């Protein structure tokens, strides 16, 4: 860590730590507050002044998991959609990124530009034709429909991210593998891919995260059978009342996977964000 400012005096340090603490509180409070709320009874939630010390209860989680409006099928939907979207993205994206990063072929620049352009699409531009098309072929409320439209956005993003990782692999590595009689495909598998393992991990995390958190496609193209958790959140809100505690419990469960993923893979995520942002997407 380099400090580019003059070394701070201790009074200033205390103030800075206080500020850092405040920022930490601001950023972390939804999760913390949500967690607390999820263990309260509805009455405790609505109490004013807010109750900090209360008897925790699991009734909300019980209702949300096993009750009439259980979100378990929704968790399942989210899992299926996100997993398939991620898997397909990697299957198509990894070879494509390698080709873009390494190999010479005609119209390479055009292809690169095309991939970049598809990243810039606003989702609403696609949701309308998808809805109309899927409606005609009975593709609404299916896993396939959601997976495919998730793919539209994950794939260019994944390619963009992976290309920079592939470009970091020294060219000589592949040449050595070719000379070692590996052939292009085996060179890719045995030599190149192990070296971009980190990049693939980062990409997987981001793609899964985006697919899991996706809302607009889920709400438009999903239905009763396929309803990811993001949509299921609205089960707990209606015009008459908001089931605060249950909503909190539901939200906690819905966000648990991504929060855990985020916390465990925090370093990877930060690296992925900075690689993407600093290295830039306009290089081709």
């Amino acid at each position, binding site marked *: 860590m380099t400090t580019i400012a003059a070394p701070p005096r201790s009074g200033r340090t205390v103030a800075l730590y206080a500020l850092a603490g405040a920022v930490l509180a601001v950023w972390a409070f939804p999760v913390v507050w949500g967690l607390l709320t999820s263990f309260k009874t509805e009455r405790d939630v609505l109490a004013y002044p807010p109750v900090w010390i209360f008897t925790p209860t699991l009734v909300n989680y019980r209702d949300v998991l096993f009750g009439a409006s259980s979100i378990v099928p929704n968790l399942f939907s989210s899992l299926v959609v996100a997993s398939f979207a991620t898997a397909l993205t990697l299957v198509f994206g990894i070879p494509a990124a390698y080709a873009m990063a390494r190999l010479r072929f005609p119209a390479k620049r055009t292809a690169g530009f095309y991939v970049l352009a598809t990243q810039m699409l606003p989702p609403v531009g696609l949701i309308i034709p998808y809805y109309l098309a899927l409606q005609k072929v009975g593709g609404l409320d299916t896993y396939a429909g959601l997976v495919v439209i998730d793919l539209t956005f994950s794939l260019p993003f994944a390619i963009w991210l992976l290309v920079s990782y592939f470009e970091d692999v020294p060219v000589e590595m592949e*040449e*050595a593998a070719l000379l070692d*009689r590996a052939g292009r495909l085996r060179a890719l598998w045995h030599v190149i891919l192990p070296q971009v393992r980190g990049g693939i991990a980062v990409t997987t995390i981001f793609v899964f995260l985006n697919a899991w958190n996706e809302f607009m496609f889920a709400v438009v193209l999903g239905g009763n059978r396929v309803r990811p958790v993001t949509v299921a959140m609205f089960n707990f809100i209606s015009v008459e009342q908001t089931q605060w505690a249950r909503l909190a419990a539901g939200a906690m469960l819905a966000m648990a996977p991504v929060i855990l993923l985020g916390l465990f893979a925090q370093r990877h995520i930060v690296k992925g964000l900075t690689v993407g942002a600093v290295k830039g997407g306009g290089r081709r």
Partner: protein
Amino acid sequence: MNIPIFGGYQEDLWPQAFADTDVELAPASATPNPAKVGSASVRIEGVVKRHGTTTVLHGIDLQIAPGEFFVLLGPSGSGKTTTLRILAGLESVSAGHVYMDGGDVTTKEPGVRDVAMVFQSYALYPHMTVEQNIGFPLKMVGTAKEVIGRSVDRAAAMVGIAHLLQRTPGQLSGGQQQRVALARAIVRQPRLFLLDEPLSNLDAKLRLETRVELKRLQRSLGVTTVYVTHDQEEAMTLADRIAVFMDGRIVQVGSPRQIFAKPLSIDVASFIGSPPMNLLVGEWEGHAVTVGGSTVAVAVESAQSRDVVVGVRPSDLRLADGGLRARVEGVEHLGDNVIVDLVVDERLVKLKTDRAPVLREGEPVFVAFAPEDAHLFDAESGVRIA
């Protein structure tokens, strides 16, 4: 000091500059090692390489005998590495052919040429152990595990890294990494061995030690070797024959001794030798050359007066009572040698001797050389005349 690097070279042709390689190898003949089975002859015919509108190689012709240690020497960008990569199959040719053992391999894939290469950066596979690195080429062609094991052990022993087999490249020093790269190349007993400036990433002392070992290794394996370097000292000590590259062309091919004794152009002359050959402009008539008012004798006669560039090696110059008028600029004491910087005819000239002269800065002196030590080049084309 008489340090025979290769037996058979005579002292007066071997300048002191190379004396720091303080090792005696088994006396070698002036011809390449008798080839072992499986080392290839290589022939390059009329190879041209273009990158878009730029021509990188202007028609290269080479013949390399089996078992020969052949060096491609030249400054950066002269096309030597490109030529090497063409031999490897990593670059295509725009025109011309490459033959190995008589067969046309010009369009063949790198993997099928039975060629091994040591890259400048070593290109080791960082996620594999040393053992896996070395065994990789054998694994790729489906060699049986026990055979791989034995071959890896043998190759590792040959380069002295048998104790490092379980480490990963990241845990090795530069010199050790280089040996792993070597082992990986020799483990499959290729018919052609290519090396791309393999010593340039090592520090000076390690470079000298490794140089010796490389030569020894090549002799014992007997495999045809093509070696690229920009370091003329390396080339002179390692090569059986050298091809000097300049601007995408080969300007001279010959043994180190031949190139040193008779450089065919000013470019080659000023590239080989440390310090490089002194070059002076003058007029040549009869048996004499006039430089800046002074006249010296040369061995070859010219019928008419013509403009020439005279080349004299720093070690062939000596202070004398007559000859070329010079002014002392400075004296550099290098330990075993002394280099005297002089100005002759407004050009900087270096003189190398092992006896420290007593000189003052600015002192006017005379320098002379034996007539047969003069190299004469045409003033316009730079081509050697005599």
